[in-house]
């Protein structure tokens, strides 16, 4: 985390990079998602939040904090690494694993809300559904994402969306969160002009 560098990024974006959500937009979107989760599930009782590393974990923690503020009860929150369930695992160089942390109560009979930063091809979510199947049998699985940028390759949709962002395939969507990047922002960059890793 380097605040100086991140501040620099927001102050003077690189050519072809623009900010589509700033800190207050992200905050409002997460507050709305938290309320939608509570409304849809009639309270926080059955809900377990599972963030997909890296940034989904931070988003899950923020949603959990908002639910706690509204309902006065904390929801079990964890993280779910899907690396080994990806369909491209044999096609790319081996990758290190992220941390998986399933809340102590487990997920059997619960409503699992998967939380991720960007919904794109849907392949990460497919992998996550397989990973969940090996851990337990939730009553239902729902999906919350900060940004839905379209271009689905699988029949998957999100239940809670922070922002629908029409993009072209040559663009790259980057989510910055304070806990990892020193700043809250969603950026769109042209892949051809920047070498930023999504």
């Amino acid at each position, binding site marked *: 985390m380097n605040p100086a560098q991140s501040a620099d990024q927001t102050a003077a974006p690189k050519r072809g990079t623009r900010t589509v959500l700033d800190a207050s937009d992200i905050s409002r979107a997460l507050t709305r998602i938290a309320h939608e989760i509570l409304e849809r599930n009639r309270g926080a009782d059955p809900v377990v939040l599972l963030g997909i590393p890296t940034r989904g974990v931070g988003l899950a923690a923020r949603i959990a904090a908002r639910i706690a503020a509204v309902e006065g009860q904390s929801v079990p929150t964890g993280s779910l*690494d899907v690396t*080994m*369930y*990806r369909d*491209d*695992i*044999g*096609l*790319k*160089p*081996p*990758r*290190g*694993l*992220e*941390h*998986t942390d*399933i809340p102590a109560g487990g997920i059997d009979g619960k409503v699992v809300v998967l939380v991720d930063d*960007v919904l*794109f*091809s849907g*392949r*990460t979510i497919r992998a996550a559904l*397989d990973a969940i199947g*090996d*851990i*337990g049998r939730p009553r239902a699985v729902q999906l919350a994402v900060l940004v839905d940028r379209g271009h689905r390759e699988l029949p998957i949709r999100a239940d809670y969306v922070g922002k629908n962002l029409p993009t072209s395939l040559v663009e*790259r*969507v980057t989510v910055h969160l304070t806990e990892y990047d020193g700043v809250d922002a969603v950026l769109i960059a042209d892949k051809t002009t920047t070498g930023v*890793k*999504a």
Partner: protein
Amino acid sequence: MKHLLSAGDLSRDEANLILDTAEEMRSLADRPIKKLPALRGRTVVNLFFEDSTRTRISFEAAAKRLSADVINFSAKGSSVSKGESLKDTALTLQAMGADGVVCRHGSSGAPHLLATSGWMTGAVVNAGDGTHEHPTQALLDAFTMRRHLGSLEGRRVTIVGDVLHSRVARSNVLLLSTLGAEVTVVAPPTLLPVEMRSWPCVTSYDLDAALPKSDAVMMLRVQRERMNDAYFPSAREYTRRYGLDVHRMAQLPDEAIVLHPGPMNRGMEISAEVADSTRSVIVEQVTNGVAIRMAVLYLLLSGSNESNEESNA
């Protein structure tokens, strides 16, 4: 990283990547379904030219938990007893499409030969070669120490016993020094190799002096099957000077742990009370061994070998 032949080949980052990955693999033991799909469709051959119980079973369990197909090969009852050469065995494995070969051999350097000869294209994991190296054992030892002691930077580890015949000792000294630990090797002069000065560790002949400043003590097995000479006057004298009993254990700092790669000679290098004491992490080492071997197989076999920089979204 294409093969794992020597603990000395690992950089600090690579070693930490394996240990961190093993940490995630270990949490699998708490799940209802102890299986991951990472190596589905890959074939792992356990090529064991030398007897082994825990290493072979550990590798087999690791490969199966990652959904790989496992073929076990032991020299006894195979064509090797009819005089087949290592080369012809390797060509057979290649023809069968082995993606990974876990090799244990009585001759030092056999896995290296398999990996570099061009006889086969799969990844080779050294599971112990002669008196040379046993890298996955060193990794699981480091992993066990890290779980108890935290970072190994500056930690003092004492390795005691038959260093001359021990591949475990060599791999551990190399790996632990890479990870920043200070290693002391304690052994009778006859059981130390001649080229000891090139090892990144301190040597001593006095166990009682080393124990009070040790965060971890690793007792090595006295390898009688490799001893065709008299290295010490009697087993009793060895036990008195270099065996770990309850009295010696009392000299250790409070949080220090006792390791042993197994199989133990109870009453020889380690007393039964010590082996069964609360400081002993010997059973845990076996559990951790599966996690470490899963991490190694996953990192060597899961991806494609071409490295491209494409990231996902």
